[in-house]
């Protein structure tokens, strides 16, 4: 990757984080939700924010401004949105068996935030057969196991068995991938590598499958202008032992980003009520920050390796 290309990749993340910080009020809970959605519905974005900020600190390629924005975003999410974790406790009391408060809490805990009352509930849940038997998609079961391990609990289902139930474990026909399968693939990789921290966590067959076919999927979702999934696939690329850092995909992705840093989810940027727009594009913008940090880190690592060779 040329210095200009690396700069382009890095710039996507800088813009995305600026937008996320400027629109931090969009991370909001619904205190009195309609009965058909439920109180926990709006927790997911907060958890995703924490995961990506953690990646940003871990990779150490963010500038001081980025690191400062990420820290302020996290503090805002913990203090203002989650009320110091008390909202997680409330969520757990509303739906005691739901894994959502646990999933949202783990990255905050790893970043130094703490809510002991929630931890008691998590440990109790973990003792229940009901928790282990919860019927969730195989890729989510794999993720729950990873969160349990990171929390210090034994995974309810051994990782190998959980992985074996996923789509990707079978190395299936690459021409059958659609958008839904695409997200199953990306999240399987996120969980197997601990969000890019451990590329060595990928089984050899998965690495080979992605080496062969990821270029096709990148090409496809670039042409479809599905920026959200394209961004996740760019993360997957950066999780591989030998990432392609696909120039065409990155150029298309960067070109889709708005001047204020927002990344549309699909096609052009939507307009309308700011909260509605936030709900549509926050995820793709988080993904843009995530992909940028990982790819920048890999590009710099490659540069360092070349320089010392």
């Amino acid at each position, binding site marked *: 990757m040329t210095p200009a290309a690396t700069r382009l990749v890095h710039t996507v993340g800088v813009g995305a984080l600026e937008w996320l910080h400027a629109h931090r009020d969009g991370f909001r809970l619904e205190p009195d939700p309609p009965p058909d959605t439920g109180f926990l519905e709006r927790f997911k974005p907060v958890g995703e924010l924490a995961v990506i900020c953690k990646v940003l600190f871990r990779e150490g390629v963010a500038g001081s401004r980025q690191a400062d924005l990420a820290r302020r975003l996290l503090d805002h999410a913990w203090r203002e949105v989650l009320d110091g974790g008390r909202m997680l406790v409330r969520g757990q009391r509303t739906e005691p068996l739901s894994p959502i408060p646990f999933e949202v809490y783990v990255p905050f805990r790893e970043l130094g935030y703490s809510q002991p009352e929630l931890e008691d509930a998590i440990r109790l849940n973990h003792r229940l057969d009901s928790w282990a038997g919860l019927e969730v998609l195989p890729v989510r079961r794999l993720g729950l196991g990873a969160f349990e391990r990171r929390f210090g609990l034994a995974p309810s289902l051994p990782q190998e068995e959980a992985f074996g139930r996923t789509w990707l474990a079978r190395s299936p026909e*690459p*021409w059958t991938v659609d958008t839904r399968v695409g997200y199953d693939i990306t999240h399987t990789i996120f969980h197997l590598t601990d969000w890019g921290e451990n590329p060595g966590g990928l089984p050899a067959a998965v690495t080979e499958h992605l080496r062969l076919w990821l270029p096709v999927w990148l090409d496809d979702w670039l042409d479809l202008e599905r920026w959200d999934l394209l961004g996740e696939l760019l993360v997957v690329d950066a999780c591989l032992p030998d990432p392609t850092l696909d120039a065409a995909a990155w150029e298309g992705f960067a070109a889709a980003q708005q001047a204020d840093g927002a990344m549309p989810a699909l096609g052009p940027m939507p307009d309308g009520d700011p909260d509605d727009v936030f709900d549509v594009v926050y995820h793709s913008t988080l993904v843009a920050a995530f992909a940028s940090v990982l790819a920048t880190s890999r590009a710099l690592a490659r540069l360092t390796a070349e320089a010392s060779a």
Partner: protein
Amino acid sequence: MEQPGTTTPLTGAVRELATQVVSALTSGGHSPMSAHTPVTVGDDELGLAAVRVLGADVLLPAVLHRTLPAPADLAVCEKAVLAYPPGPDASPASRWSHWAMVRTLADLGAPTAHTSFENPEPDAAWLEDLPWQGLAHQLALLAALAVPGADSAVAGIARRRTVDVARGFVRAVRRRGWLQAAATGRWLTLLDDVPDTLGLDAGLAFVALMGGDDPRVALHLQAARPVLPGAAAGRT
């Protein structure tokens, strides 16, 4: 690429010719001593244009079944070759298409082609540097060169870039480009080292299910059939 729903006289003639070729391919090999029933319908301008579109595949039943081609087909193909040599501005793909037809005519013993043409292979280096998407597109246009035992510089590049051809197959299926999918799949049946995870056998069946109504798609799928796994014994 033709737009769905639009039918020009040429499109219709090509479909008709492809239908005849498919019919000849599926009817199985005739006795080596008797010639095939003709697949071409005439040597007027439209008939010749249709022959030029399908190229050497017009003679594919005789090549694959190792039988004599119908004299009428040989005559029409020779006329097409003589009437429309590639001009100075011809694309590499049309040069190769012409080359393949001349070679096939010569292999089948057509007297004019055999004696009148010096037929050096066109340049294939331009394929080497194409990204995998472009390579797969060009190979799909040149699928008439994908014939068991018929080597060429194009086939050599396909062998060296098998993974890229396989990616082109995936791309075409994903985009529902059944003609390109069938054509790249046809190439893949000739190549060693196709990744198992591609699922080529099921992929070709899927293309047949989804796009096999188009006789040009069916033609490529029929061409791919003799060398599918389990039927590879006769491969040269």
